[in-house]
């Protein structure tokens, strides 16, 4: 349950990085449209029930569900694909680990990670390599 002050801070920081037409922020949810370098648009929903105390759940709500290169829905938890168990037919992505999370992480930082995840997902579609190949390299 975000405080009013935190909600204002989150909105301000998001609006510095993204157009306010691109996202809708309430105390429970952030919905944001993200465009990748290939000009494809994805809709992302971030559940904020216990934000900022615990890692928020991030879902790709459009396309629903995301498909991997083989055409299979990405609804299972997978380490190489950086996904967690999907809900309501939406792919859930893995961004911050529980031990890396703290209340000083703001939503714009999560969104930046989601943006990176989407770029890497599109690389997977082109090459067939799992997302881990790129994300591990990026982290290293």
């Amino acid at each position, binding site marked *: 349950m975000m405080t009013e002050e935190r909600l204002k801070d989150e909105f301000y920081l998001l609006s510095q990085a993204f157009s306010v037409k691109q996202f809708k922020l309430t105390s429970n949810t952030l919905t944001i449209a993200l465009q990748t370098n290939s000009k494809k648009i994805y809709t992302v929903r971030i559940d904020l029930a216990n934000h900022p105390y615990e890692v928020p759940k991030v879902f790709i709500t459009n396309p629903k569900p995301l498909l991997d290169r083989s055409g299979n829905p990405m609804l299972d938890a997978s380490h190489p694909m950086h996904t967690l168990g999907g809900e309501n037919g939406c792919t859930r992505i893995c961004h911050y*680990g529980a031990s890396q999370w*703290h*209340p000083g992480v703001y939503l714009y930082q999560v969104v930046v990670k989601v943006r990176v995840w989407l770029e890497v997902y599109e690389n997977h579609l082109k090459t067939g390599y799992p997302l881990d190949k790129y994300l591990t390299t990026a982290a290293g």
Partner: protein
Amino acid sequence: MESLLYLYQYQIQKFVNSSAGSQLGVAYEWKGEDVYHAYLEYPQIAPSGYAVACLFLKAACKADYENAECFAGNLMNQDASMARLGMVVVFCMENGRLLKRAFVPNDSARCVRIEYVPDKSNLYTRSKGLIEVGALEKRHVLIVGLGSGGATIAVELAKAGVGNFALVDFDRLELHNIARHIAGVNELGRLKTNIVRDAILGKNPYANISTHPVDIMKDIPLIEQLVSGTDLVIAATDSLPSRYLLNSLIIKHKKTGLFGRAVTRAEGGDVLRVRPGGPCYACLKGSQWYTQEEEITDLRRARETGVIPAYTSEEDADAMVQVGLSTDIAPINTMVVKLAIQELSRGTECLITTLDKELDYDFYMWANRRELHFANWAPFNHNPGRKKPTILQWYGVKFPKSCDCHECRNY
């Protein structure tokens, strides 16, 4: 042969002042030890021992008082429900003085000595001077998380004379808890809130205790209400989100909080004290002294909170659950209790307040073994110049309040 019978003074007073001539109660006997505890009403805490029926009698005159064995014998012969009486307690008023005696039916040779369970004013007489018992009795402590840390801390605070508690934990006692928890196998399956409530009442039957078997992440309004109404918050939970939530509420309501925890397999642990205007739990992030690598004690919880990611296999997840020994957690609990008593005693005149000049750090660290996070510490038996910290000693760390801390910068 002498048996020992304990009676609860407030129950006897109620019985003596009532119009009833007799009342059936229950006595619990430790077989082979000749020790009984008798009750006239359902006790606050689950009694121990084996139950026998116990008859409480008020004799109208001294003669009846002295012939109570005959009266009880007749009663047992006439009334089938009284046939298995295990103890009889008789009272009689004589010249304004309450006479009392007890006997075991069919064993008139056995002498029974009666003792009263001490009343409130006598419970903590031996602590007087060292701590201000009267002040602690009025203090209120909120303890969130009643595992091997919180449960032990709660009982220690009750032993020190703290009179008011709010206990929060949604968990039940499971087999894997037993090795480190205050409760034994006879309490498996019980809510930890109730186990700890009973343990506190066992030390202080007059303590006021509220229990809240809830997940604080799912009932934030309740936990906020509890924080706002307490003198001290003890965060003994095993998850980072719950500690961050408590930190936020402690700051918002200008309370004092103590955060105690063990790190991986209790190789060590730390205690943080958060006071109004000082650094908070979120300020710790990034400190060289602090690691977010927690001890994983419960597979199911670790899965739920994401500490063990969903894609981790069952086999790997099992290997990640590595708990420490109870004895390795004990020093951390002791430090939390010391700091708690120090905080609760502020403003009173007692010997414990001399610690104010010494225990003035924000963060305290302890290592049990030179492993992982503490691998570079000096060996216990070889620490030339004492340039490095070593195991089995407390180290205090003062660290500044972070001016850009999103949680406490405005407080």
